[in-house]
């Protein structure tokens, strides 16, 4: 255990050192991510000003919904950048190198790479949105709500981590999964910016049961906000985020373990 923590420390130090070889670029990168993601929010903001509410959700509640997405993503890429970029790792032959080192494979994938500056950009935006909206959406931050919120964040991170791990594992079979990730992660995430109740039933089902982004932000937000459109879904869903997160991650991990035997390396 101590040894693992020491190793994580050394990896993190190395990542930091590499980044700070290019200080200006590193800072600009955080800023660029922040601005890029903000643009999307600003568009929604001004659109909503015209409509007032969206299926009962006002602008602040929408920003709160968004904040969960960004906060979880910020944490997500501190831990799962390596899985996000795994197809590159396989193609470049770096995964072969991981296999040749006496450390856990997932351990190496997770801790060798962390996109700190994108994390600052995404997480910073998430925190800003949270600060802007949390006071205005009528949530009373009781200890119970705070604990719920923290569990929901952890669960949301795990759900997305599991999606990354699942797609990374598919790489072992397909070598390239960029388009799958585009569809199953990034497009699904775009839907998740809105209350899922505004969508067609099929999309709602997809967001709950296939790529369960609804558990990353919609249901946790509903727990705290209790909007009327929640009536369409079972009450229990409000509490399931951590369970879905852990369950999905375990499944993805199992799939990963089974698939390693089929690893084909990248040739040269």
């Amino acid at each position, binding site marked *: 255990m101590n*040894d693992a923590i*020491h*190793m994580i420390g*050394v*990896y993190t130090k*190395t990542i930091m*050192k*590499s980044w700070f*070889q*290019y200080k200006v670029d590193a800072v600009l990168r955080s800023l660029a991510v922040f601005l890029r993601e903000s643009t999307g929010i600003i568009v929604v903001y001004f659109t909503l000003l015209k409509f007032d509410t969206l299926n009962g959700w006002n602008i602040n509640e929408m920003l709160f919904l968004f904040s969960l997405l960004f906060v979880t993503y910020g944490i997500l890429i501190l831990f799962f950048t390596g899985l996000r970029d795994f197809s590159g790792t396989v193609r*470049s*032959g770096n995964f*072969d*190198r991981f*296999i*040749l*080192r*006496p*450390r*856990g494979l997932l351990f190496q994938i997770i801790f060798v790479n962390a996109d700190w500056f994108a994390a600052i950009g995404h997480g910073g935006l998430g925190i800003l949105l949270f600060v802007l909206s949390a006071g205005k959406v009528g949530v009373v931050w009781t200890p119970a709500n705070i604990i719920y919120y923290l569990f929901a964040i952890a669960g949301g991170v795990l759900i997305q981590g599991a999606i990354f791990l699942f797609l990374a594992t598919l790489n072992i079979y*397909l070598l390239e999964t960029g*388009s*799958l990730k585009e*569809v199953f992660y990034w497009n699904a995430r775009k839907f998740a910016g809105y209350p899922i109740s505004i969508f067609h039933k099929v999309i709602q089902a997809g967001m709950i049961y296939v790529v369960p982004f609804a558990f990353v932000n919609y249901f946790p937000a509903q727990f705290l906000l209790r909007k009327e459109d929640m009536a369409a879904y079972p009450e229990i869903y409000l509490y399931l985020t951590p369970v879905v997160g852990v369950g999905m991650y375990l499944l993805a991990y199992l799939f990963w373990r089974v698939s390693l*035997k089929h*690893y*084909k*390396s990248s*040739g*040269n």
Partner: protein
Amino acid sequence: MSGKEGYIEVKNVSKRFKVNKRANGIPGMIANMFRPKFEYKHAVNDISFSIKQGEMIGFIGPNGAGKSTTIKMLSGILYPDSGEIVVNGYKPYEDRKEYVGNIGVVFGQKSQLQWDLPVIDSFELLKAIYRIPEDKYKKNLERFTEMLDMSGFINQPVRQLSLGQRMRADIVAALLHSPQIVFFDEPTIGVDVVGKETIRNFIRELNKEDNITMIFTTHDMQDIEKVCDRLIIIDKGSKIYDGKLLGIREKYGTTRQLDVEFVENYDVAPIEKVTIQELDELDGRKKRFIFENREVQIDELMNTLLSGYAIRDINISEPEIESLIRKIYNGEVS
């Protein structure tokens, strides 16, 4: 020094790859999930060999022969489809974590150093990864740095190094944890003549002093001739030669060539089973006679020539190892 027999045992190992023929785009990908179309390609086909501890093996073959696949199975990156590999009591692909602490791998084409950081930082990282004790790390680092003359660039970022310097640093990186077996996959590729020589001498010395077992793949015959005791040649996934380097000549080098400088430009009469070539030298007075030493008695050939023509100079030569191996690759000899 001599070591254990059967240190590395490879028994009837095969590896085939499923080559997926798939249509493009997302519809193609989805169609492919339900109805995959596959082809099988044998990368390695029923290979067996045994290596003694401390041996220095040249492992060669043309591109696509299955060298890399074999190295990857030996180092635990790939699972064999059938057959068995046991290295020093470990099955590489099953006991990965324990096994890889005992081996070092140098991929000439793929550095394991941190591109943006000074060389020494990569070494420090490896020290943590392999849990190398401080004193052993210091000792190894000092020794290798001196042997490979690296003190001048150990504090430079890897991206600023020449290819030869980078390769030396990569070799040290693979050796810091004192592995008992080292795989070199084209360790001299792209390195200049002097650099190659430095690397070869270092490898030779290390093999002798530390009795490290080494397996070497390369396309550079000089590497093999200067470094390796034993040669394993594979082609199209099968082993086609396994033995001493010099044994190649005995087995395949049966062609001889006799260059003769005549006093005049004679019209030499055809001789049975001998190919005669005119050389564009000395106004056609020099001719080359090529024959198989199993089919033609050299003394008879000499007699024929000496009795028929006046001769000024004569030179007989065996083929170069390099050209023999090229012929083996091309399937010209069997």
